[in-house]
């Protein structure tokens, strides 16, 4: 009884509001040195790639952004499911707050991918399975935000976009595999993102540092946004 009470303690926007502020501050403070360290390792310490030269260094932004774009969609759908199941206001607010950050990372992943693809593949855009499914993921984010924005009644907007997020999450694997098969059937193995089998430790370190920095940034950004949403609604 007591534990359940504590479990739901922070599900009230009023009690969560100050906590969100504290967590956001610490995450933002943590993200800055981690990003600096990640960029330092990535741009200065990590060795030049034997095949791709200096161009590959964009992966220190690209790969963590792509990870975050997918993870945030899952977290968003998770909050949406929690909101629909327990009817908690805060869960819907979290889902709504995560969407712009997720869309931002999806866009960054696509943009940096294009910058990397130009010198490596010779084209800004290739209909590779990952690129295409990332693009569709961006559309899913935009659809989520557009649906939320176009419904005036907040309660209905929350629940409708939550349902859409769950439907999207169910569809993401189907879309990914269909695009993958489509791609292999269409143009064979012309381009693949497979990297050298063993990645240098410094490269991995840089990427993990950047991923951690992006994690902290996402948490901070989402919590700051959720504080705005709480202020606006409550």
């Amino acid at each position: 009884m007591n534990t359940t009470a504590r479990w739901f303690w922070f599900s009230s926007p009023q009690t969560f509001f100050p906590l969100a502020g504290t967590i956001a501050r610490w995450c933002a403070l943590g993200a800055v040195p981690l990003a600096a360290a990640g960029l330092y390792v990535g741009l200065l310490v990590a060795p030049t790639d034997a095949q791709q030269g200096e161009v590959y260094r964009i992966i220190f932004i690209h790969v963590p952004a792509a990870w975050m774009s997918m993870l945030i969609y899952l977290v968003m759908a998770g909050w949406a499911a929690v909101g629909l199941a327990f009817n908690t206001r805060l869960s819907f607010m979290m889902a709504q707050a995560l969407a712009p950050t997720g869309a931002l990372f999806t866009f960054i992943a696509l943009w940096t991918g294009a910058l990397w693809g130009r010198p490596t593949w010779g084209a800004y855009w290739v209909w590779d399975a990952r690129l295409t499914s990332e693009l569709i993921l961006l559309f899913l984010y935009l659809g989520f935000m557009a649906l939320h924005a176009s419904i005036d009644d907040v309660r209905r907007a929350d629940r409708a976009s939550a349902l859409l997020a769950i439907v999207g999450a169910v569809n993401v694997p189907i879309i990914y595999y269909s695009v993958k098969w489509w791609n292999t059937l269409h143009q064979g193995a012309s381009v693949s993102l497979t990297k050298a089998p063993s990645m240098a430790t410094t490269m991995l370190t840089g990427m993990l540092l950047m991923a951690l920095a992006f994690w902290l940034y996402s948490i901070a950004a989402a919590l700051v946004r959720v504080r705005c949403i709480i202020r606006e609604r409550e």
Partner: protein
Amino acid sequence: MLAVARCIVHRDLLLALRRRSDVATALLFFVIVASLFPLGVGAEPHLLRPIAPGVIWVAALLSSMLSLARLFAADHADGTLEQMLLGAAPLGVVVVAKGLAHWLIAGLPLVAIAPLIGLQYDLGGPGLYGVLALSLLLGTPVLSLIGAIGAALTLGLRGGGVLLALLVLPLYVPVLIFGAGSVEMAASGLSPAGHLLLLGALLVAAIAFSPWAVAAALRIAMD
């Protein structure tokens, strides 16, 4: 339960029959979109033949999507939908019946006329027209069922039509890939069975899951 479903299908078909122009518009849209491509890319058969499956499928996607807005709108406007929600019949059954009616009105005519469009594009051997029709036969019900989710979510919203496209089209991607893919496989002399089976799998999954989602979306919209 089946009686309810039959009743709804019958009613929707009767309504469509009374207003034939609505049905004809979606079909005409399909034909026009498919006819625009040769004007845009050029009329050479060697250009048209490879793009035919994709063009026909994209046109079918758009045409099916355009008629989605009407799926629940009229019933929502005159209060019938509210009665259906309050009624004793499970909402899932109502949704399946409405989806079936939508497919009979908007999907089945596409299946029937698609081989004719294929002929315009000089698709190839007679077997290909069969594959095209079969792929549409399996795929268009999926479009109706997935689209119903979007239609229910955007019920009564301003700018609903454009929003519906944004929500629904990304979810249509697998159907498009397997649908057009099956025809392309057949055109290049390979067996289209794999793609058609996957389309069938999508259909089964859509029949199983989408009524839940549509029912939930309708409950949210009518809250």
